[in-house]
């Protein structure tokens, strides 16, 4: 009989010739602290600007009367994973945290239809790696069905609905080098498949959203080769839905991602890449968070990250707050705010700022040891839902709610887990 502990000890003895040194740890710590100092300075600038801006504009924060907390209408849809072996479960919950119900199991990314009544999701076959087809399910969990049973590529991963709900865009995977890879659109029945993009080399495209008028698609083009730390980075593009007019939005010297590093050593940053950029409500501009660096520098994790606004034609890309460790960028669907999360300096917090860079303020506080990230707007732009983590445990986060004026901070979920995706539907499922 084999003594497993002895076996492991002997293997370790054979494998470990040179143990990592304390000097190496010191160098890594110095890099991290340098980032934190940068981020701390940025936060100070942001806060000072916000205070000065508020004073100049005569802005006075009006506290909400106790007992009259605003709650937007609709339903919050979220995916949750408490145990990797059990997979992800998708739930719906009212903005007040009540009427939580299980919707479906087996996927962690989805897109709520424009009328809010159904979810578009990848139907994944667990027995075939990377195999997925577009499917929909009603927000009450009824009528789940595949939109396509067969596709002329290895998989078609649905990403987003068109604004009128008549079509959706998805990313297709195909054998390496095949022109079948890229973004595709199809009608809401899954037919009339049309290839919009064809990424070069080992690249891979991921759609973020249609423009509000439905004429363009905002998407990430991943750079195929990863750096020595294996983190993925991407450029941000728009393209007309007919495949013409490809425009890169992030200026030279910037790159989006990597998404698994977090900011300034933030211990957890499972920020969904689709939250990295978003359209303005009129579709004329885009906001995005990007590393101010080359791809290889970004992969090293030692760079500043900026919050940008750019015209949809790629012109006039500019930062609207000082660079720091900014993780995501979400333009409010109604109103004049952009929400983002930024390390402060270690744990990230949620901020909002006007598109012209004025009025920046924090909506959450990491002073209690809880980091916040991943803001997602309510359809009416009056509130946000976001992720908050109060411990060292990676999978111990919860979803929280806050009004855009900072009032009504409420914990929505009470099950420590990883909440990978969440969106807000205007559709109300609970009675």
């Amino acid at each position, binding site marked *: 009989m*084999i003594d497993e502990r002895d*076996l*492991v000890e002997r293997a370790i003895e054979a*494998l470990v010739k040179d143990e*990592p040194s304390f000097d190496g*740890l010191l160098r890594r710590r110095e890099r991290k602290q340098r980032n934190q100092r940068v981020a701390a300075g940025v936060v100070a600038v942001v806060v000072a600007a916000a205070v000065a801006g508020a004073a100049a504009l005569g802005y006075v924060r009006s506290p909400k009367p106790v007992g009259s907390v605003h709650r937007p209408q609709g339903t919050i849809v979220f995916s949750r994973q408490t145990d990797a072996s059990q997979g992800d479960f998708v739930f719906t919950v009212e903005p007040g945290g009540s009427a939580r119900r299980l919707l479906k199991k087996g996927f962690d990314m989805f897109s709520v239809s424009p009328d809010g009544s159904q979810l578009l999701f*990848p139907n994944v076959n667990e027995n075939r790696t990377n195999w997925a087809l577009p499917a929909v399910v009603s927000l009450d969990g009824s009528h789940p069905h595949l939109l396509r049973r067969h596709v002329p590529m290895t998989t078609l991963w649905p990403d987003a609905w068109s604004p009128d709900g008549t079509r959706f865009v998805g990313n297709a995977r195909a054998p390496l080098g095949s022109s079948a890879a890229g973004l595709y659109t199809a009608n809401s029945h899954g037919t009339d498949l049309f290839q919009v993009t064809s990424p070069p080399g080992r690249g891979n495209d991921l759609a973020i959203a249609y423009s509000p008028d439905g004429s363009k698609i905002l998407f990430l083009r991943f750079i195929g080769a990863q750096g020595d730390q294996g983190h993925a980075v991407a450029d941000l593009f728009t393209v007309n839905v007919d495949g013409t007019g490809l425009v890169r939005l992030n200026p030279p010297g910037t790159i989006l991602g990597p998404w698994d590093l977090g900011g300034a050593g933030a211990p957890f940053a499972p920020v969904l890449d689709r939250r990295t950029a978003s359209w303005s409500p009129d579709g004329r501009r885009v906001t995005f968070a990007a590393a101010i660096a080359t791809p290889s520098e970004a992969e090293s994790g030692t760079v500043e990250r900026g919050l940008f606004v750019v015209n949809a034609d790629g012109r006039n890309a500019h930062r609207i707050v000082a660079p720091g460790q900014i993780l995501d960028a979400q333009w409010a669907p109604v109103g004049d705010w952009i929400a983002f999360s930024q390390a402060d300096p270690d744990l990230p917090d949620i901020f909002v700022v006007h598109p012209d860079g004025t009025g920046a303020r924090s909506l959450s506080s990491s002073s209690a040891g809880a980091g916040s990230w991943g803001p997602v707007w309510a359809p009416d732009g009056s509130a946000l839902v976001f992720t908050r983590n109060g411990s060292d445990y990676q999978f111990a986060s919860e979803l929280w709610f806050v009004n855009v004026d900072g009032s009504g901070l409420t914990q929505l979920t009470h099950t420590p887990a990883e909440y990978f995706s969440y969106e807000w539907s205007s559709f109300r499922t609970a009675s």
Partner: protein
Amino acid sequence: MRVMNGPLRAVGNHETKREPVHPLPVELSFDEFFEVERGRLFGALIIVTGNRAEAEELLQDAFLKVWERWERVAVMDEPVGFLYRTALNLHRKRIRRAAVALRKGMDLLPDADELAVVETRDEAVRLLGRLTPRERAAIVVTAYLGYSSEEAGRLLGISAQTVRVLTSRARATLRAAGEESS
């Protein structure tokens, strides 16, 4: 100087019937803690990840988290357990993100499982190389680190039942491999 006398966490260690390995010496500063624990953690992470570079990166990140919280960690009952939980949690996070990336056609984790492909005369390394990465992780966390199936499941992000299945499979593979070589 903080006093640390907590042993490595071995909650409900009735399955292995062993004392936890390497109880912590007392009166350690962080750099002494690093010196004491780095080799064993590095070895465990090489076995779990199958990749030396990945193991070193995880080790540094885990120790940095401990260092940043040293005032708090040093007075814990089980600071070594905290270190391993942190390291395995980081590993789990990377696996999770790699799974997401995989669906986008990217590979975030190193391709090579060095343990599986290594040319070695060392029998222990060769035997462990027969196991899948998940089986190796289960063996390291239960047999080597002394955690119960329940606690190992929480550390590895899988159910206790899955831990038992993995360790059972691993033992069968090791037994068969041992018989082949004898």
